[in-house]
């Protein structure tokens, strides 16, 4: 099982829950499962989020492999200047 944490506004859209145990092999699996568990979150996930894996930010790396040892944070989509 993967431990997935939600940051910022995403937790609010998940009914205030910020940590989930999810079965999956990659980022796409995680986002799909989260969308099913939290329908209010799905449009945001579909639009795009940032995923931090062991402290490294990924923006759209859907097939980045994940293991239970990874620290996984789903964060808001970010943009810079």
């Amino acid at each position, binding site marked *: 099982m993967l431990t997935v*944490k939600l*940051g*910022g*506004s995403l*937790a*609010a859209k998940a009914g205030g829950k910020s940590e989930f145990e999810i079965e999956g092999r990659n980022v796409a699996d995680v986002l799909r499962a989260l969308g099913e568990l939290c329908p209010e979150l799905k449009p945001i996930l579909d639009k795009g989020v940032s995923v*931090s894996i*062991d*402290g*490294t*930010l*990924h*923006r*759209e*790396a859907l097939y*980045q492999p994940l293991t239970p040892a990874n*620290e996984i*944070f789903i*964060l*808001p989509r*970010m*943009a*810079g*200047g």
Partner: protein
Amino acid sequence: MPLDTKPNVIPTTFKTVGTRPVRPDGVDKVTGRARFGADMQAPGMLVGRVLRSPHAHARIVKIDTSKAEALPGVKAVITSKDMPAQEGCDMDVLTNVMARDKALYDGHAVAAVAAVDAAVARKALKLIKVDYKVLPHVTDVDEAMKPDAPILHAHIEHEYQQDLLETAGHVKGKKERTLPKGKRPSNIAGRYEFGHGDIKKGFAEADVIVEHEFTTEATHQGYIEPHACLASVSSDGWAEMWVCTQGHFMVRDVCAKLLGLDVSRLRVTASEIGGGFGGKTTVFIEPVALALSRKAGKPVKIVMSREEVFRATGPTSSASMKVKIGAKRDGTFTAADAILKFQGGAFPGSPVEMGAMCAFACYDLRNVRIIGYDVVTNRPKQAAYRAPGAPMAAFAVEACVGELSEKLKMDAIDIRLKNAAKEGTVSSYGPTFGPVGLVETLQAAKAHKNYKVKLGPNQGRGVASGFWFNFGGQTCTTLNLNSDGTLGLAVGTPDIGGSRASMCLMAAEELGIAYDDVRTIVADTGSLGYNDISEGSRVTFSSGLATINAARDCKKKLCQRAAMIWGIPEEAVEWKDGHARPAGANAGNFEPLSIKELAAKASGTGGPIAGHFEVNADGAGPSFATHVVDVEVDPETGAMKVLRYLVVQDAGKAIHPDYVEGQFQGGAVQGIGWVLNEEYIYGADGRLQNPGFLDYRIPVCSDVPMIDTVIVEVPNPGHPYGVRGVGETSIVPPLAAVANAVSAAMGVRATTLPMSPPKVLAALENKMRKAAD
């Protein structure tokens, strides 16, 4: 082939990377040959002009364009009716480029014309009659958050909560109880929360607590080149655009979506760019020019005036903030709390979420909470500005850290070192940091000569640190070997800070050839796969990563050609110092082949040789900076002089140190302007009072000293050469560093930006009055 199996080991020595050659675009820029947005011409070109709302908030009852359309020389007039909503388009962007039922800010576009020349276009604008019903407006973030504020968008709703009532200045009690429960129309577009631990417990453990409220004003990126574009739609529906932008692929895709075009039918070329700093990461006039060209059947060029740039493009947010930090007597932080309220203009999307994530990112905190509010007001839709959201948050946080150091009688750098985030720290926004260089920047700042200079009367020293994420993103690059052995490198990321020179250096380093043998161009959207915008400090990281890998692809092909010529297996050839060589004694005894020799034989060995690389680059390493500044305050006039300024920042690896230092210096200077002078000033009528550089004062050379720099290099493991982005972090600490210096010089805490002379004088007078009492 050994190239494929080598582990990604970051080199420790370089031959070309780290040198400081002249930039390839330098001569064109200093001789006036470089072609910026306004320099583009096309046969039969028309002049486009935009009519803008004079009201901060008004319902558009009717627009009569008949007289303008009848004016000789006018070829097209458009309103929102000519830009109907397309399926899947971003309605906020569409509504921002052309108002629909309401004008939402002073300067909001309501109509546009294309005419044979500028005089006719201006005359036509005067003939367009717009009937407005003026509505109440709100431009201040705290006022906009109140439940009884004028509402911009009926569809934005928020449930007013106790914390919000407190932050909006509403006391607990009667007024709160009168609010109905549940969601109601509001200007609050979002509430965000980050953090971990138990702040109540953390503050209970503190020996000292510092708490202040802060405000910052909206500032503009202040790029020298106004927005400009030329659009040409042909009668068969194919279109071209030449645009001054940070992201021409974005312009193509967004314009195609807004106007219902196939992406393939629109080709966009990025012109040279006279500054962007985030302000050119979206569209304003581009879809309008395209719609005018489509209607007129001729090319249309729109060039914004400076007044339009101020009134109708995207400045950054203004902010109202409250920060509280608790610490033990030894300086260890026990808890930190912040409430950030950012107005982002007339549409949702202020950078408060990123401000909230960056606010306490410099520190290792067990108990931390940050709440952010995204608020809409009757101002232009904000756009990104270098490290969006972070400078304002850092100003408030670092001011409190500065005051804690004073109260605890600790050195300003030592207190930061004691609490600094490092590898393994759980960041305030969640993830655990990998290798980062904040400690190294603090140590280098403390060791610098500027930190040891003794200060005189009315002088003060300020220290602040700052953080920015840095991003990667979609990148596609091609490296073409020419017949004489030189190389043409095509990238899709507009050069906004000397990146072409850095790309040439990386390609040259990888291939073992001279810098001058590589020429980098920014290719148009028809020539490469999609490239994300030049934003997020991503270009040297991600376009550099793609360039290095394209060069490796090229090397692999060069080795294949050498193997073919020598009649040996590819695996028996290696690339070293610009030559293909037999890999070891068993490979055979052959004279090495240079890149020029292989290029000359390309036709006979299989044809053109090119390296390609496409990636959605991840692994951009976050960066930290520490700034130290000394200022002197004139107690009679309130004027301030920056005496010396030091930027220390972790670049991972400086590819071209001149341009890394230039980014450091530029960020510092823009920050100095933000803290001392720059501000959007709105009148009671909701109109911008200072839309020009005479009344909106950005720093000039005589306002600032030489900005000293120290490049720290803690390699980023996510890049082949260890590169981190450098373009944004440098603007995060200056607001706080200068404000801390001003506070030290005045003996009064600066909590309101800009600290312009009248505010400094008022603070000093208030201090004297209190002392007299």
